[in-house]
């Protein structure tokens, strides 16, 4: 087994072999999840706490289901945000939860780096469920699994990531992961939603969506993150849809077998035409949700194995295992 990480804070620290290990394990959980009886025992006896400082429905329920299917005791904590003293609650809450001896801590926070900060204060395994504009590793991993199953491989593909790149942690994690697996990544969107320095990331930048979609194998749409914007990024939603929304005409420029992805929740008619999203021949959006549960089961399983090995080694007085 080549998965050594103690936490899953991002895809950036993962080696390609670790990504492959995780995806391979996730495949077995896809099979498990399709059975009538969906119980595994990999997390039997472990406590999983979902700590969400930012509202989430899909990611939180996906993590909850993943934990429950593997036998963990799952607790959800929705932490109300006071607008000023965010950080104090963060560290205090972390220390309080840590004292309850959880084994897996799933965290989402609106500030970049907040999950790293929290991970340095606790002694359980921490999974990043999205921090600010930084990373969302399980989303990138579930996207990778979806692509691998749809295209038969996860290398030498042309992937166009389109839309609000600047505010998107999904875009960052995907860009890093797809780059590690040797794919050709294009970022497509208006200059106002393109992060500065993106050209140094080893990807192509396209302001013209038609050029960006040309011969793409995968079209990954991003949600326009209205809640992260402090005004004035695009003139209007209808102009945005006209120029950067995915419709049949623009999709026709991609390869005939190109797949369409979206991390959800979708703004239909803003970044994606509803009929494209519902086209079962092109859209893999529902598969992404399914893969999400399997990937999260695999991630927590691997971290739990490392956690048990580390604790076993410590109990045996053998120092650090990893």
């Amino acid at each position: 087994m080549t998965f050594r990480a103690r936490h899953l804070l991002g895809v950036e620290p993962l080696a390609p072999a670790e990504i492959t290990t995780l995806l391979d394990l996730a495949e077995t959980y896809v099979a498990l999840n399709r059975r009538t009886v969906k119980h595994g025992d990999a997390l039997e006896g472990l406590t999983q706490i979902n700590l969400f400082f930012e509202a989430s429905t899909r990611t939180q329920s996906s993590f909850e289901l993943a934990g429950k299917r593997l036998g963990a005791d799952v607790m959800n904590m929705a932490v109300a945000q006071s607008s000023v003293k965010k950080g104090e609650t963060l560290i205090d809450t972390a220390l309080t939860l840590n004292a309850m001896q959880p084994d897996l801590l799933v965290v989402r926070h609106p500030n970049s780096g907040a999950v790293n900060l929290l991970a340095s204060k606790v002694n359980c395994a921490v999974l990043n469920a999205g921090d600010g504009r930084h990373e969302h590793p399980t989303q990138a991993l579930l996207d990778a699994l979806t692509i691998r199953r749809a295209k038969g491989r996860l290398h030498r593909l042309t992937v166009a990531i389109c839309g609000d790149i600047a505010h998107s942690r999904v875009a960052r994690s995907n860009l890093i992961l797809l780059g590690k697996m040797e794919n050709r990544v294009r970022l497509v969107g208006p200059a106002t939603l393109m992060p500065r320095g993106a050209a140094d990331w080893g990807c192509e930048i396209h302001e013209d969506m038609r050029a960006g979609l040309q011969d793409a194998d995968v079209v990954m749409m991003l949600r326009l993150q209205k809640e992260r914007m402090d005004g004035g990024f695009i003139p209007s939603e209808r102009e945005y849809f006209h120029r950067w929304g995915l419709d049949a005409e623009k999709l026709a420029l991609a390869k005939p077998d190109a797949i369409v992805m979206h991390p959800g929740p979708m703004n239909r008619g803003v970044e994606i035409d509803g009929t494209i999203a519902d086209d079962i021949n092109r859209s893999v959006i529902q598969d992404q949700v399914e893969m999400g549960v399997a990937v999260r089961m695999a991630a927590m399983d691997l971290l739990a194995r490392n956690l048990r090995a580390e604790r076993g080694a410590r109990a045996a007085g053998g120092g650090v295992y990893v």
Partner: protein
Amino acid sequence: MILHFQNARLIDPQALSDEPGSLTVQDGTIVALDGDAPEGATVIDCGGRCLAPGIVDWGVKIGEPGERHRESMRSAALAAAAGGVTTIVARPDTLPPIDTPEGLEFVTRRAAEQPVRIRHQAALTRAREGREMVEMGFLMDAGALAFTDGVRVVTDTRLLSRCMAYARGLGALIVGHPQDAGLSRGAAATAGKFASLYGIPAVSPMAERMGLERDLALAELTGVRWHADQITTAAALPVLDRARAAGLDVTAGASIHHLTLNEYDVGDYRTFFRLTPPLRSEDDRMALVEAVADGRIDVIGSFHTPQDEEAKRLPFEVAAPGAVGLETLLPAAMRLYHQGGVGLAQLWRALSLNPATRLGLPGGRLAAGTPADLVLFDPDAPFVLDRFALRSKSKNTPFDGTRMEGRVLGTWVGGTRVFGGDHG
């Protein structure tokens, strides 16, 4: 009381020389260079170590009044003495801000009890709110060295131009923070590859150039004496050159942190590296070092900003900006010396002579008739910095755990030893 420093390596920023020599002090004043020890003098053998004018650190935040838990006059002064800083030029961004003559008199009284010299700048506008001018004349009479709202940029250009015109009439010095307030709102890093990958709200380096262009245009309009507190980007340097070529009375400073660190030092969201302005690219840093060497940057300061532990134990973008620097200014500056390109005499021009001259202070030089504010240091002595060993009440230094060279062996203010020897 006569002191005679012999066997010293004299760092003279005025003559730009770095040569062996001796120095004699009588009644707190330098009386001779290169003479023999007079009758009855206390002889201090420097052992070939460097003897330089004490550092004049322009832009230090002291938490008095209002935030003494972060830094008191006393703790700042002890830290300064240990760092070879003999004059602190404090910022007015206290709680409440130093914006009245009465407030200035209070801090001046407190400052008089301290082992190093502490002088104050006053706010430029009342409560630093950018709406009304302070009583500049009264404040100058009470001893204000300069006027500044610190990192709060006055966005009302009409008000700023009036402040400058009024200051021009008084001969007052205005210190600006070159930054475009709109572009830099909410920013915690410099826009670029690093900030984008780590998802930190960022500001373009262009915001500094825009702020500088604006302030210099108003300085040209009014003819005021103007100083930029911190220049941190390469793009701002040509703007400064043009203003000087046009004959404006303009000087510029830089923080030691921007001269020795770059944006990548932030690493894994380390909040001790969150500064205002944010750390810049390595290209900017190198351009700044070059500008110090050729004298385009006049002043180097620590921009000492004490923050308590809780203010830094937060996610990067919401953590309080700033770093302490009184004790680390000298060893950090030694990095520039050891990396080559900047000599000790050149460094001391920016650390003591230029700030003293610009602020109208008598010290900052090794000349007969000037106050004996001196620092004796070993530029090569290595050590590993432990932040909990700092004398400052706040321990937020980005140099914690790093290897540094340059140790202060003794500090004298007006001929009185305030650090080293019996002072520990």
